[in-house]
């Protein structure tokens, strides 16, 4: 039996909207609006969606970097504490960000960036820490010479390798990766994706991978959750969701991706309107842009519907499933 590593129950994160001279709170952006998900130990879950759908907010809430406005986060079977995390928990959950340069201290040599978490989380003597840091860097393809340099002398891909080595130094059970390859070229991205696959195979570390790129998620993850307007609209095994996307938004998202093979048809759908800030409230978050929307979509929030290992939130899909 695989153990429950992460569970989100109706997670909510709201940002206040302030208006006027007195900066009064005039409303709220419901960045994460009632998300329930689970990730078993050693599992890989991808969170897909476009700008503003709440992906990064979700990742930061799980990493304890911001406090939820509602709902619950369970890590390793216990409720995640609000505010500052105890050392043991900080060690078990590590994060890798999109901007590989920004997450490294420019005044700190590469080797020190990896020695730092070793110092914080292990009881190794200094000499052993240095050896371990070099070994970790070697594992991600950074040489001993490069380890003595400063981050700005490295390429984007190399910096991201260092960030990954730094995360691994804590020997975490879960690594949260927020768009880890979005700033990288496709050839460098391939190297990082292979590295992540190796780490998962070898160490069994669980991944929560945030990406706007469905192909990246499909390559790395076993399961995927598609977010729109702060809510999950569809979630399930990657192979199933790709084979038969059921939610109108998942369909539009997959249809919009052009394949480099010119013989594979590309038939992007035209969606109405533009992506706005999630407002929360009753109804389907996708209704303004959905080609299938009807009156019910604005009046009732779609409920979870389970189909073949996937879960879909859409009235129209539900109606189709009902026997006539």
């Amino acid at each position, binding site marked *: 039996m695989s153990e429950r590593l992460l569970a989100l129950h109706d997670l909510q994160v709201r940002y206040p909207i302030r208006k006027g001279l007195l900066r009064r709170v005039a409303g709220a952006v419901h960045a994460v609006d009632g998300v329930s998900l689970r990730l078993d130990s050693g599992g890989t879950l991808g969170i897909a969606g476009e700008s503003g759908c709440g992906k990064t907010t979700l990742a930061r809430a799980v990493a304890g970097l911001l406090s939820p406005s509602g709902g619950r986060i369970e890590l390793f079977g216990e409720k995640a504490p609000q505010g500052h995390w105890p050392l043991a928990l900080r060690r078990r959950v590590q994060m890798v960000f999109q901007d590989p340069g920004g997450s490294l201290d420019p005044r700190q040599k590469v080797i020190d960036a990896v020695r730092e978490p070793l110092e914080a989380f292990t009881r190794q003597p200094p000499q052993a820490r240095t050896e371990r840091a070099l070994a970790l860097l070697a594992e991600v393809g950074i040489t001993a010479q490069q380890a003595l340099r400063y981050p700005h002398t490295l390429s984007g891909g190399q910096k991201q390798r260092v960030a990954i080595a730094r995360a691994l130094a804590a020997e975490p059970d879960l690594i949260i990766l927020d768009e880890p390859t979005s700033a990288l*070229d496709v*050839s460098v991205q391939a190297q990082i994706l*292979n590295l992540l696959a190796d780490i998962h195979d070898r160490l069994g570390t669980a991944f929560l991978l945030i990406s706007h790129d469905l192909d990246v998620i499909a390559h790395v993850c076993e399961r995927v959750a598609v977010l729109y307007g702060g809510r999950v609209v569809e979630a399930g095994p990657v192979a199933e969701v790709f084979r038969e996307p059921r939610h109108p938004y998942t369909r539009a998202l997959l249809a919009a991706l052009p394949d480099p093979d010119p013989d594979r048809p590309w038939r992007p759908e035209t969606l109405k309107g533009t*992506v706005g800030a999630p407002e929360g409230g009753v109804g389907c978050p996708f209704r303004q842009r959905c080609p299938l929307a009807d009156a019910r979509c604005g009046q009732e929030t779609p409920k979870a519907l389970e189909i073949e290992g996937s879960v879909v939130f859409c009235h129209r899909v539900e109606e189709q499933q009902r026997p006539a």
Partner: protein
Amino acid sequence: MALLSMRGVHVVVDTAEGPRTLVRLSELELAEGEMLGLVGETGSGKTLTGLAVTRVFPTPSIRLQGGSIELGGRDLAGLGERELLAVRGREVGVVFQDPNASLNPVFPVGRPLMDLLGLHRSLRGQAAVAEAVRLFQRVELPDAAALLSRYPHELSGGQRQRVMIAMAIAAGPKLLVADEPTTALDVTVQAELLRLLDDLRREAGMSVLFITHNLGVVAHMVERVAIMYAGDVVETGPTRAVLKEPRHPYTRLLLEAVPRQGQGRLKAIAGTAVPRSEIAQGCAFASRCPFAQDRCRAIEPALEGPGVHRAACLRQEEVLHV
């Protein structure tokens, strides 16, 4: 007939140690009404190639060192700054990746467009407003008249990019340089914008130099493609031929690096790109190429091939048949 023909274009940056080569383009041609995809990874020189056409470089230390750039039979490389002013915007329009960098946040989005209409087409007052509304409608912006007085932050990223396109086509240019116009946009917004660009091209018979790093977009948007590596074109030809039967190892590896569902380990390209200036002789890709032989480090391959599909590789026949 080629509308644009670039030959031997050499772009350098002046440094304390003397000029350093950034781009050295063997050749690049664009037919009238054609959309050509210029593809490559970061730093391969796509942007500088596009900017070289009208010589608007990001810093004064970057300059055109040599080569010819013929637009409609006239060599732009020989023109002075004043003559180029008449070419920029009027004969050649440009759209960049980041619409935020190009729109001033303190002005309504209609203002720079109307300035352009005054400058290039001597339209002012009501006539300029009417034409601006028409252009906004043409790029499929909703509520065009009202939108003219909106500020950039009130528009979505996709809408701002449409404003940039309206400005780029305002003077009816023969050539549009579109540098990663959809890279900063969401995929569901990208498709719409690409279709718009293609419609505009057909309608006006305009040529488009479409710069991108996205092989998927190229596969479905352009008929002809040029792949860049280390400041030069390494392969060019009809899109289908290049993507289905690549003759250059770099093109081949690039295609294999694209992740897909249900696929095992990706084939990553070893090492990182070497800047043009550090390649003394031979093939620029030799340090990373799985096909490299000794002669590759001695002889610099030229773009060649059996027909319109050409590659700069000494072993292209073997690459094709592996």
